[in-house]
């Protein structure tokens, strides 16, 4: 396999989609304008928790340009269904999760600052905004609670169905066996961790244009979605807006998602619904960044206590975890599966841990909803496992790398005590490579040199595992999922031999137009420029599950691969008929069909044309045309894994932590385009460094206001905050898909917070430093140490 040139699998092909982006010709939702378009602005709650006594729109309705103002009453009158959570979790006692109502516009109560109260539609953005300010809402404030640690049983009862604010109390693993392991342990390591709340911040704010065609009586919604078909399904089946054939959802170019654009939000639904009520005129809404901060689903927000049992040889014998997971004020689309099946099932990490028991309390807080954010549960799991493993090694005075190595899973398949069955991996190989690239041997010298200039150096490891390509559908259905997680593909070969692939995956930065075309080019032996990837429009692609959880390679491309198998089989039959041979004797290689033992051959394009003109075969035996579809439902998750090593240097005068060296060795199985995969890893690592050192969502306890509501207050990583990274790959091909692919989109964000914080705690020689370890946090920790040293 040539992996440096060409356009096939393994080649660093420059991206086909880039031309439009670098020339300003991208087509994002806010770039689209429809005839007679109006503009939306939302009246939002200024209270964390309050009863709505009145909404007076009379004055606002008289303002210039106002076309319509809608409130929760209009939603109720129209019987528009509320927002749903699509994964049913049952508590330990068997009771179903307590899902409170989540109306598209508030009905009687608001539950977080930014909650959507009314929709104002006007001729211009400015007019809508001015009229929104004139809507008078009478609130009676209620007690509120914003911290997950305090929320259970707090005075603020956020939903009537959950008087103690607990959504569910879920568990996994064998509690009795785990307790026994702890009774017999030689050593127990205990740790308390906070996984800080993050705000996703895709650079393109959410946007929507909803319109209703009075002639065809059908709706169209342009929206910033990672999964337009799921959006259509939910808006159709649960909100009850219109049947699916009367609702088209288009997700054009989307400027980053990171999970936050998976979910079906109130604003998008409100815009498409309200269009019918203003005579079908399109309604455009584009979030201001401050609205993104307030009302995009946030990520993480866990408070965890964990204990790790080891025997006298340093072998891990048990892990016990209790986590309080914030859900925010409402259950977002997939919120419930994140701190459960995407989190606790990964608590075995890369280790052979015979006994694991985890309990999770999911808790309402008066904050924006919390849902999947890059990694979704798996960064939280990795943070617990890798922080406690590192802490145990330090307590046992063992080398953290060797402590990990002696506990690694080495035999595959490996069944963990928490559902997952790891199919393939070589964790020691990644560790060895990482140790070498990071020059861990030279660390002691670098630490001494840093000390001489008054700096503290630390080294931290993170040996992560993740599960992506969530599947098979029947298995996740049994765990409570409301959807199947297969993917679809349709391959259309045109008469001239060019190819269009319609995929249910959606690209919002991942480069599918390139990597998917590489697969087709490789398989059919055609020029990559003769392949077009079509996605993001429910009128073009029949159905699909979208892109998240690093699934589009392992699941989406496998669906394409299966459709290509069918194309090849059909094309062979056509070629056989034309060349007057048996289909069994036709071979296909490098874009040419040949007949075994003869010099007969046909190019792929010739066969395509033959399929469409249908002159040379019996149409009763072979249907004309060359178009095939496939749905692929994987037989297992895929399990990317790797070892990241982070080296930091802390300035003791300022508390500033510099990441001075970062090595990532990842096993993603077979790689289609290393250039794109490296880019995914870079981006993921920086999101994780952001979590560790800079980003933290803060709600004020007293007022319930979001204090980190702009880029002035919420620190996004910038170019000068991060270094270049040293990347390398190992490869154990995934056995559950024909391409041997795993997933690479989230690995960086999963691995890096633990690697950074293990390095920071090593540098400071302390057990824990809270994330984000901002200069202020570190400086404060340094002061008593400095005093003690004086």
């Amino acid at each position, binding site marked *: 396999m040539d992996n440096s040139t060409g356009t096939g699998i393994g080649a660093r092909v420059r991206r086909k989609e880039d031309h439009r*982006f670098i*020339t300003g010709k991208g087509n994002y939702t806010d770039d689209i304008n429809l005839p007679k378009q109006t503009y939306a602005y939302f009246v939002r709650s200024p209270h964390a928790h309050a009863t709505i006594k009145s909404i007076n729109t009379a004055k606002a309705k008289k303002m210039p340009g106002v076309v319509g103002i809608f409130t929760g009453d209009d939603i109720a009158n129209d019987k528009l269904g509320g927002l749903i959570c699509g994964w049913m979790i049952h508590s330990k006692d068997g009771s179903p999760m307590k899902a409170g109502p989540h109306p598209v516009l508030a009905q009687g109560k608001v539950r977080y600052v930014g909650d959507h109260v009314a929709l104002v539609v006007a001729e211009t953005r*400015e007019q809508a905004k001015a009229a929104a300010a004139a809507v008078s809402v009478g609130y009676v404030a209620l007690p509120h609670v914003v911290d997950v640690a305090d929320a259970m049983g707090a005075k603020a009862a956020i939903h009537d169905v959950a008087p103690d604010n607990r959504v569910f109390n879920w568990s996994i693993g064998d509690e009795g066996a785990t307790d026994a392991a702890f009774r017999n342990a030689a050593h127990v390591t205990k740790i308390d961790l906070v996984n800080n709340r993050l705000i996703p911040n895709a650079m393109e704010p959410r946007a929507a244009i909803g319109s209703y065609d009075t002639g065809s009586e059908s709706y169209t919604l342009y929206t910033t979605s990672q999964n337009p078909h799921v959006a259509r399904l939910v808006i159709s089946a649960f909100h009850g807006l219109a049947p699916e054939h009367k609702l088209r959802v288009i997700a054009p170019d989307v400027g980053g998602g990171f999970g936050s654009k998976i979910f079906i939000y109130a604003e998008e639904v409100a815009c498409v619904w309200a269009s019918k009520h203003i005579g079908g005129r399109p309604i455009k809404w584009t979030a201001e960044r401050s609205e993104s901060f307030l009302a995009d689903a946030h990520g993480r927000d866990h408070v965890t206590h964990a204990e790790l049992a080891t025997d006298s040889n340093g072998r891990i014998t048990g892990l016990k975890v209790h986590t309080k997971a914030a859900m925010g004020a409402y259950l977002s689309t997939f919120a419930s599966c994140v701190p459960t099946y995407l989190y606790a099932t990964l608590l075995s990490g890369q280790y052979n841990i015979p006994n694991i028991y985890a309990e999770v309390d999911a808790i309402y807080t008066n904050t924006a909803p919390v849902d999947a954010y890059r990694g979704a549960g798996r960064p939280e799991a990795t943070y617990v496992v890798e922080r406690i493993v590192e802490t145990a090694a330090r307590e046992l005075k063992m080398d953290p790398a060797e402590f990990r190595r002696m506990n690694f899973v080495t035999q595959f398949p490996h069944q963990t005590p928490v559902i997952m069955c790891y199919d393939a991996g070589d964790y020691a190989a990644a560790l060895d490579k990482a140790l070498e690239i990071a020059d861990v041997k030279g660390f002691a010298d670098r630490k001494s040199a840093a000390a001489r200039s008054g700096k503290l150096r630390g080294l931290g490891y993170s040996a992560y595992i993740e599960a992506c390509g969530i599947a098979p559908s029947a298995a996740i259905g049994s765990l409570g999922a409301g959807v199947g997680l297969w993917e679809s593909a349709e391959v259309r070969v045109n008469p001239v031999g060019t190819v269009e692939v319609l995929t249910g995956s959606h690209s919002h930065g*991942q480069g599918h137009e390139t990597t998917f075309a590489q697969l087709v080019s490789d398989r059919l032996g055609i020029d990559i420029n003769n392949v077009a990837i079509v996605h993001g429009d429910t009128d073009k692609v029949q159905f699909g599950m979208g892109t998240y959880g690093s699934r589009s390679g392992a699941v989406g491309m496998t669906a394409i691969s299966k459709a290509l198998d069918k194309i090849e089989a059909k094309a062979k039959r056509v070629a056989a008929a034309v060349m007057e041979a048996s289909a069994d004797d036709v071979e296909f290689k490098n874009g040419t069909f040949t007949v075994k033992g003869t010099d007969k051959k046909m190019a792929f394009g010739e066969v395509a044309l033959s399929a469409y003109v249908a002159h040379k075969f019996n149409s009763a035996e072979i249907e004309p045309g060359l178009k095939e579809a496939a749905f692929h439902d994987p037989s297992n998750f895929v399990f990317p894994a790797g070892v990241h090593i982070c080296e930091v240097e802390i300035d003791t005068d300022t508390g500033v932590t510099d990441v001075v060296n970062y090595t990532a060795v990842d096993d993603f199985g077979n790689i289609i385009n290393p250039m794109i995969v490296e*880019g995914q890893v870079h981006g993921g690592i920086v999101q994780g460094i952001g979590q560790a050192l800079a980003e933290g969502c803060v709600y004020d306890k007293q007022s319930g206001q979001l204090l980190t509501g*702009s880029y002035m207050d919420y620190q996004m990583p*910038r170019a000068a905050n991060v270094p270049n990274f040293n990347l390398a790959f190992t490869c154990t091909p995934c056995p559950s898909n024909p391409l041997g692919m795993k997933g690479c989109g989230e690995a960086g964000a999963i691995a890096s917070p633990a690697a950074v914080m293990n390095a920071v705690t090593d540098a400071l020689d302390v057990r824990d430093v809270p994330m984000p370890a901002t200069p202020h946090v570190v400086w404060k920790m340094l002061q008593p140490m400095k005093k003690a040293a004086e």
Partner: protein
Amino acid sequence: MPAITMKVNGQAVCGDVEGRTLLVEFLRDKLGLTGTHVGCDTSQCGACVVHVDGKAVKSCTALAISCADSEVTTIEGLARNGKLHPMQEAFREHHGLQCGFCTPGMIMAAVDIVKRKGKKLDEDTIRHELEGNICRCTGYQNIVAAVKAGAASM
């Protein structure tokens, strides 16, 4: 509403604007030049960077009326005669973009950096100079590589 004239990407344009109309709104809404993006409301992210009279400006923070009679270059005007600008070429070559949303601002800012700092840029300078541009996808490594290479070939 006052009418203003401006030269945008080499072409004379005119339009009525309100006093409060931002340059980015004039470009996007009146001229249909949607390559310039709005990523925030606090002048932090840099997705809206264009050149006004040869200097990089955040078009979300400039009033259209204050740019009357100026020469404005947006991402759409960077390529000349169908040939990409070396900085555009470098972003593609070095995979300096993923979702593409911050990219126009990044490229416009990068061209400005070269104008001010010269063609031989070291990595620290580039990282420091990109302080006003946020990218959530790339982790910056490939953007820095692209700016370095793009600068050298300008």
